[in-house]
């Protein structure tokens, strides 16, 4: 018996093997219980992913999206400002406490830069997620490289006739199983 497929099971299930290699692999799977079970498990995972139900949007999706622009991006390291190296008034947000006097002009804060970076990164990440989500179906439903069925249909038809003829009461019949062009005229034969 040929060697077990190992990691190539995933390639086989995903249709990433070349046709000749896939043929050999399927022939091995047919006689190897271990690889057969592994292939079945792999396909089960693929089928499961294919049948994942639709994702329902949260009811507060829009509100949360709108709220992102005003969401505190979280603490950022304090940076020195003119007149002192301590924490900024208002904490990490940079907001002044109510009633406090305007402080000295600060250089562009990392908080704002952080928001820009964060927002941009979020956009890029979200688009990336969208692309991945959009492409996941194609990943999970990859056309698996399988044996071609068309060449054997006539063999299957012949097998049917041979089996049916073996049945009791089938009668002494002979069927033409080869393909006959339906457009070819066939002269009716009188009832014997």
């Amino acid at each position: 018996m040929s060697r077990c497929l190992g990691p190539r099971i995933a390639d086989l299930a995903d249709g990433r093997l070349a046709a000749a290699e896939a043929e050999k692999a399927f022939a091995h799977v047919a006689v190897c219980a271990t690889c057969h079970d592994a292939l079945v498990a792999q396909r089960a995972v693929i089928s499961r992913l294919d049948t994942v139900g639709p994702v329902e949007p949260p009811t507060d999706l829009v509100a949360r999206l709108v709220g992102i622009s005003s969401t505190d991006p979280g603490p950022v390291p304090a940076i020195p400002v003119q007149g002192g190296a301590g924490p900024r008034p208002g904490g990490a947000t940079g907001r002044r406490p109510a009633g406090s006097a305007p402080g000295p002009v600060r250089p562009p804060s990392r908080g704002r830069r952080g928001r820009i970076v964060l927002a941009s990164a979020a956009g890029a990440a979200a688009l990336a997620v969208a692309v991945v989500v959009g492409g996941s179906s194609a990943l999970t439903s990859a056309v698996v490289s399988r044996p071609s069925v068309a060449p054997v249909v006539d063999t299957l038809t012949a097998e049917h006739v041979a089996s049916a003829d073996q049945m009791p009461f089938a009668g002494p019949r002979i069927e033409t199983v080869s393909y006959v062009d339906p457009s070819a005229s066939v002269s009716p034969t009188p009832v014997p």
Partner: protein
Amino acid sequence: MSRPAALVAGSVAGLLGLAVAGLAAVGSVPAASSGADGWSGWTGRIDTASVSDKAAMTPDDDVAVALLQRSARAASTLAYSGRAVTWTRYGSSTTSITHVPGTGTISLPDGAPGTQATLAPDGRSNSFADDGRPLAVLQDNFRVLREAELDTAVAGRPADAVVAVDADGVLDARYWLDHATGLLLRKELLDPKGLVRSRTGFETFSLGVPAGTVVPAAAPDPWTEQLTTASLVAARTHGCACPDSLPGGLALLDARRAPAGAVSSAPVVHQLFSDGLTTVSLFSIQGALGADDAAGLAARGFARRQLGEHYAWVRGGTPQMPTTTVVWASHDYVLTLVSDNAIDPLRTAGAVVAAFPPVPDPPDSSLWARVARGWHRITGGTP
């Protein structure tokens, strides 16, 4: 760009990206793909509501049953030979037949110069059917009655007539059984109007094997593995439909498998079903139909046609070509259905295809298609 403007632009980009991602996620699966195709929890048994209501029938004729039982035994135990004619409204063929008990049936078609005789070995079939099973299936779906008025001579031999009638009282088949031995000498299948749609029978017949008969070598049989109920159950756990019945009262009579490399590079399961008159084969091959298959099927005379609510590749199913072959893909398997003597083969095929629905066309998985579906879903529109 000024910093506030950059901030706004970045935020807008972020919001837009998140919105797109959300919509794409929401629209990632079409609402139509509900999976409500009857596949979950598949046990292999078809709803048999379409089976004839046997209880509504009058009892079988005991004499008819006994004659058919004797005929089933005689077919495998007696030596005989003759010329058999198969006739339909659109053509006929004649074949010389010799049955050698324990060996098989030798067939040589007429009118085909150079054609070699072939041997169909005895005892190959019936993993789910002893001699009595086909008759039991026939009785499940039809009444069998002795019709002495139809007794006649077939190929010069007195024959007893038996008929099969369905639950509605419609005559579906007539059999003429050799009075001396019970061998089936002629069989007719009728359409709903009572007209003969096919007839098979001997025009010459004699008991025994003619002197000098040469038994040809049997062709290699790739269908070597007989399947049992347990092996069919195991196959189902691996995704094969492998049903134990089909719509229309078609019961399983035989199941076998060709190993990988024998018929196809993958193993092929063959199941033979019958309602007593019609025989149907279902072949299951793990795989999918690709573009090459479509081209190959088209080159072999198949056309993609609608059967009920589904589409499949169909060849035949016409009076001129009664042998009907239907190919479709369903749940990781390519299924091939072959029927050659059904009254309405396309209707039979349609019922089977509906029981094992074809894989739907894959949804448009492009980003914008998913976004659009997500948008419709959020806004309550039709996906």
